């Protein structure tokens, strides 16, 4: 088995279908109108709440598979001692077990919510962030950025379970949330420890984390605003070792992404309007002349 496994070769059974981040965000079915300051937060009041929650749960499920694969590869890809500390690899092995359990939980919850494996497409961008050749960059990208996003997702989903009167969902999300806080803390602790005497490497890792954070804020899916389906779980992020400045920085990037998306949707709708007007004008003229 080679070191460093390409994302294109991730092993899946016949039920899975992969799409890119760009394809997912450009899917016309997911484009939201430009309703000013609309509340898109995933709550039971949303008209599409059932499908939204199912889709999010399937996203959690495939995300957990990739997180499991990413942590597993960190156990294998780096030589113990010379490339990664023994204790860091032990933490990654522990994360493997946690993520495997999360896959189990997600499968059971998906079934509970009436979804089958493969009902939604899989976006493999999470594993891509786990492919860096530097273990510290992996920890920054996966444990801090992506597992940080998982904290936001699980908090939103837990609240959804609470509001929807689904204690089964709320119970499971809360357990997974506890694990995610642990994983983010692992990332925060190792980042500080391994780069203690290497500020350049730390800077590079934090830059990489920022890129992944921005990527996962793409389309404004997660932000403090209710216009984003997923909120920013500030308190749990603090527990996981994020500083106030870091949380603010993620909040800014997320809000920027939301505004970019709103501007893009507005432009798209304006373009569509002018296209409709242009198409309507000649046909109207022809009708007049014909009459």
């Amino acid at each position, binding site marked *: *088995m080679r070191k460093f496994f390409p994302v294109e070769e991730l*092993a899946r059974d016949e039920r899975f279908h992969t799409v890119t981040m760009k394809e997912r965000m450009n899917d016309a079915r997911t484009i939201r109108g430009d309703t000013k300051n609309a509340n898109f937060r995933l709550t039971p009041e949303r008209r599409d709440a059932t499908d939204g929650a199912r889709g999010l749960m399937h996203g959690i499920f495939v995300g957990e598979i990739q997180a499991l694969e990413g942590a*597993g*590869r960190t*156990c*294998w890809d780096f030589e113990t001692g010379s490339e990664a500390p023994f204790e860091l690899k*032990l933490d990654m092995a522990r994360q493997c*077990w946690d*993520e495997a359990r999360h896959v189990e939980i997600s499968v059971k919850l998906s079934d509970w919510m009436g979804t089958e494996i493969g009902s939604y497409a899989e976006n493999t961008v999470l594993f891509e962030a786990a492919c860096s050749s530097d273990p510290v960059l992996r920890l920054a990208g996966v444990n801090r950025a992506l597992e940080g996003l998982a904290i936001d997702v699980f908090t939103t989903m837990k609240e959804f379970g609470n509001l929807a009167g689904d204690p089964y969902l709320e119970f499971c999300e809360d357990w997974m949330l506890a694990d995610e806080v642990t994983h983010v803390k692992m990332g925060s602790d190792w980042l500080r420890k391994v780069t203690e005497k290497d500020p350049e490497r730390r800077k590079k890792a934090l830059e990489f984390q920022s890129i992944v954070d921005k990527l996962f804020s793409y389309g404004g899916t997660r932000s403090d605003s209710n216009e984003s389906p997923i909120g920013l779980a500030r308190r749990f992020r603090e527990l996981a070792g994020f500083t106030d400045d870091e949380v603010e920085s993620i909040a800014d990037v997320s809000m920027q992404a939301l505004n970019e998306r709103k501007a893009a949707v507005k432009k798209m709708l304006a373009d569509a309007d002018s296209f409709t007007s242009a198409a309507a004008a000649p046909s109207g003229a022809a009708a007049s002349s014909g009459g």
Partner: protein
Amino acid sequence: MADPHKARAPFAPWDRRTLPGLFDVEESARRVGNYKWAEMKLFEALGGWVATVPELDVKMRLGTHCYKHAWHAELWHKRLPELREMNPDRLTAPANDAMVRFVAAMTEPEAHDQTIEKLVGVYRVYIPRFIAAYTYHLNATSEITDAPTIRTIKLILQDEFDDWRDGEMLIQSLIETPDDAARAAAHQQRLETIMIEAGGIAGPGSLGS
């Protein structure tokens, strides 16, 4: 109530533990170093394989077992300084070159359609060898002087038996044709040949002599 001042035997009549053991401190430490190396190689391989197997149930089991073997490596890592090896890395070593070749051969399969080979290497060859070496250590070492190692082995053996059963059941569920059975047997034979040369997890003498 019995008189609390009456002299009692230090060892109760049902406590039949004895002092003699076959291993001195150095020998126990050497074996523990081999165990740690072998468990490390196992958890690394299990973690690496997760991304390469398409079967979802196998993927999840490998992830779960990966941690158990990492924990075993950690237990042995902590035991080494208690056996007078203050630099645990010094004794964290394969029993011999054949053991290195065995691990290389066991971790060779990568393709999506080689789940049987991956599982056979671990659950039909490697883990049974762990069970054998640990059981021998358990039975051979001093029940009193090396009690901490015995306790660790007992904890680990429970995992090994559980994982062996999980793995064996997965293999049986994947072997559907005589050709599959032949593939499994051929791979097992290839690995067993190297393992015989290695002599077991702790080298020749893993099961005594």
